[in-house]
């Protein structure tokens, strides 16, 4: 096994035991990036020099017997995360030359934990998209089959982990932007509870929906990553009070006796491959001792409608600062999708339309939240596919925005309700493309999601399968 294929856990052990150095580990990742980035477009910026410097520092600390959670571990950052002194573009021409003067809280936390930043990953510009094709710097490709989309918007982050260009990466999930690409790339993706990870310094898409999460190779790694990033931040007024917990603690407790619901609204109209995979998946949970129950979430069908009002409304306001006065590029440099959302959002917030659209969408939001709250009184977690189809071909949906929007149908409600959801590899389609499932829980229940995900992963071991690059 190459060093860059390691998990966080194994890499940490190897570094600690001095089986290899952080420099060697980092170089292995950088080499992989250099070798395949041309084909995959996973990275916008490769920070080789900075990475090697921090790897060197990490090695020094390791030889001084210092221990930090991520000491010497190569990590990639979605290019929405502000990095001091390193270009942060949001994959948009509007910010193509923007160099932040500060680090996002999560970036600072990762650096403080000893992580080595190897680069900034590609995405749908401003995180607008489900396929990775909306990047102004070219679409990211699916490493399992380069004719297919990797899922978006955190396309590059998912691909970088799937193709072993780094050990783990960060992402943002506003309507499925972590879970969808995770499921399309056979990696683990966590969308945490809203407010559990600081948004400070991460270029906003839709502020009330943006969740800051990450991609890892295993569920255990996801818990380790969450140990570093979760927590209250005085710079983000929407972060929740601290509940210090070690998210790896209950990982191996098994799922015997857990009540897991399958929402009927999430499993109708599935693609055949997805349906088969999903059935196998919940059978596995049953075999592991969980009790599977059917659940109704009647407001799910309004999820996409509400989401495509709330989200563009906030987008239209959040993008107003790129007015052509600062950052060096005119408003005409916005891509079509951003323009579309600015127009939609401006319309839905306009006087005379506000009540009919925004206000109504917010009422639906309350009902969806209540739907989940009531459900989680009765069960421990929900289980569903991430997407009703496996990855689609590049270009297939790009000219049909509505079709593209609908690919988020199974993921948006978790954002609307602010609940956590973990995407875990669940198998492959008939043409060998990854399919993922998601485990959703009530607010702050990430530890249960990790437990279920870990049990499922230990049983299935899908993560061990790698794309042929």
């Amino acid at each position, binding site marked *: 096994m190459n060093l860059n294929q390691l998990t966080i856990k194994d890499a940490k052990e190897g570094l600690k035991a001095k089986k290899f150095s952080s420099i060697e580990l980092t170089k292995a990742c950088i080499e992989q990036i250099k070798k395949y980035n041309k084909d995959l477009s996973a990275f916008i910026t490769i920070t080789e020099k900075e990475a090697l410097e921090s790897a060197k520092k990490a090695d020094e600390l390791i030889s001084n017997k210092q221990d930090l959670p991520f000491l010497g571990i190569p990590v990639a950052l979605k290019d*929405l995360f502000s990095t001091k002194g390193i270009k942060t573009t949001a994959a948009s021409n509007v910010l193509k030359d923007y160099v932040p003067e500060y680090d996002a809280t999560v970036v600072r936390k990762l650096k403080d934990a000893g992580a080595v930043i190897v680069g900034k990953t590609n995405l749908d510009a401003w995180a607008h998209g489900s396929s990775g094709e909306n990047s102004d710097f070219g679409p990211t490709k699916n490493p399992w089959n380069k004719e297919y989309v990797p899922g978006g918007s955190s396309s590059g982050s998912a691909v970088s982990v799937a193709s072993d260009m780094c050990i783990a990466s960060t992402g943002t999930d506003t309507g499925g932007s972590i879970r969808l690409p995770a499921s399309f790339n056979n990696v683990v993706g966590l969308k945490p509870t809203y407010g559990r990870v600081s948004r400070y310094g991460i270029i906003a898409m839709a502020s*009330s929906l943006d969740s800051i999460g990450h991609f890892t190779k295993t569920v255990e790694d996801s818990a380790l990553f969450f140990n570093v990033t979760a927590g209250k931040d*005085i710079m983000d007024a929407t972060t929740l009070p601290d509940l210090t917990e070690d998210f790896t603690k209950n990982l191996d407790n098994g799922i015997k006796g857990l009540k897991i619901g399958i929402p009927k609204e999430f499993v109708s109209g599935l693609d055949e491959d997805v349906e088969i995979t999903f059935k196998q998946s919940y059978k596995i949970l049953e075999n592991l001792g969980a009790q599977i129950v059917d659940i109704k979430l009647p407001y799910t069908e309004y999820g996409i409608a509400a989401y495509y009002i709330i989200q563009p409304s906030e987008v239209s306001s959040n993008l107003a600062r790129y007015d052509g006065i600062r950052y060096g590029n005119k408003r005409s440099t916005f891509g079509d999708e951003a323009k579309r959302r600015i127009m939609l959002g401006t319309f839905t917030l306009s006087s005379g339309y506000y009540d009919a659209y925004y206000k109504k969408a917010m009422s639906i939001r309350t009902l969806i939240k209540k739907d989940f709250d009531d459900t989680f009184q009765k069960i421990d977690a929900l289980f569903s596919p991430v997407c009703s189809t496996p990855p689609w071909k590049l270009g297939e949906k790009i000219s049909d925005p509505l079709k593209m929007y609908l690919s988020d149908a199974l993921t948006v409600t978790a954002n609307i309700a602010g609940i956590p959801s973990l995407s875990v590899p669940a198998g492959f389609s008939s043409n060998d493309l990854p399919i993922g499932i998601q485990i959703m829980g009530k607010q702050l229940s990430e530890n249960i999601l990790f437990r279920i995900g870990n049990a499922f992963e230990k049983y299935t071991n899908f993560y061990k399968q790698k794309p042929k690059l």
Partner: protein
Amino acid sequence: MKYKPVIGLEVHIELKTKSKMFCGCSANYFGQKPNTHTCPVCLGLPGALPVPNKTAIDWCIMIGLALNCDIANFSKFDRKNYFYPDLPKGYQISQYDQPFCLKGFVELSDGKKIGITRVHMEEDTGKLIHQDENSLIDFNRSGVPLVEIVTEPDFENAKEVIEYLKKLQQIIRYLNVSDADMEKGNMRLEPNISLKIEGIEELPNYKVEVKNINSFRFVEKAIEYEIKRQTEILCKEQIPAQETRGWDEDKQKTVPQRTKEEANDYRYFPEPDIPPLIFTQNKIQELKSQMPEMPGQTFKRFKTNYNLNEYYIEILTKEKLTVNYFDESVAVGKEHNVSPNQIANLLVNKNINVNSTLPADLIKNILNSTKITEIEEPELKKIISRVLKENKKAVKDYKSGKETAIMFLLGQVMKTSRLKLNASKIKELLKKMLQ
């Protein structure tokens, strides 16, 4: 037809908190080098988030309480979306439909109550500086806490407006939450003026807003000018345009700034970066208990406790500093049998610098100046004889019937003795010795 002015006011007060409204930058921007009090938050850099300043919110609520407002149990911030180069986020964080304070009033001296519609919290914008052909932006002011106080259209003339403004300024200064200095821009006024037909309840169907007024005197002139201008238009059976005008001090008139035919659509919506705020009765009580005595209360107290005349009270209560000084002096004076009235007399009539004179010294001065020295009659007679000898002309004048000359001689006696003497006693002696 007779017209009656309908005037409302919007006042912006910049708070003097240490830090800005949503970040840790210093809020003291006056006279500072441009763009030195900035950070990602007040520059609106990508990813930066606002965290509300608790002190500013407390102070805004105190202003509301001082203006007899109801305090909302549930409130929130909203985004007011508009484009302007001095607004780095493309929206201003303000409050729309659920401000902190609602429905208050300010009572004028004639008992008339001016209704306060709302008091809300927002952030100031940056400042545009036009230099030659360039427009430069200074973001030091961006994000400084701003409180907006909106009245009902209850004013009928400029005099009422001025009285209200003075009262408001006094209240703000008592609370010590802002210097409310018009020249420095930490108190800004925007009157809106229209005229209605007298005797008709309905409000006029137009409104003229006047901006860029930086003194009470100008607001008076602007209102009077507008009343005259609008009356003339109405008398021609036309309707004044709905617009924003500015006061031009050189021309002594208001001039149009921009027409407001198309109302700006600010696309308000709840600020998703700041959770809603809940104010419990306990919290409101706690803030009430932290508030100093307000001018109205001080006025009443000075009247009942000190029995001063209203003219004195008005002068003494103008500033909180003087009030505190007066209270302290009264306490010291009590030990020496100096009455509040004596102290008030001195403070109002003599130019006492309350910053450099200790209350104890003030009382000492009063005691010294009122102490009457007893002097033996032979001694006094000696002094008088000397004065009479030295002022022969006055003596002659007196003897020839000019009675006022005696006052001059009295003064001379005082002066010669260098003592504060009992005047009537000297006068009596003088009369005797002049016979």
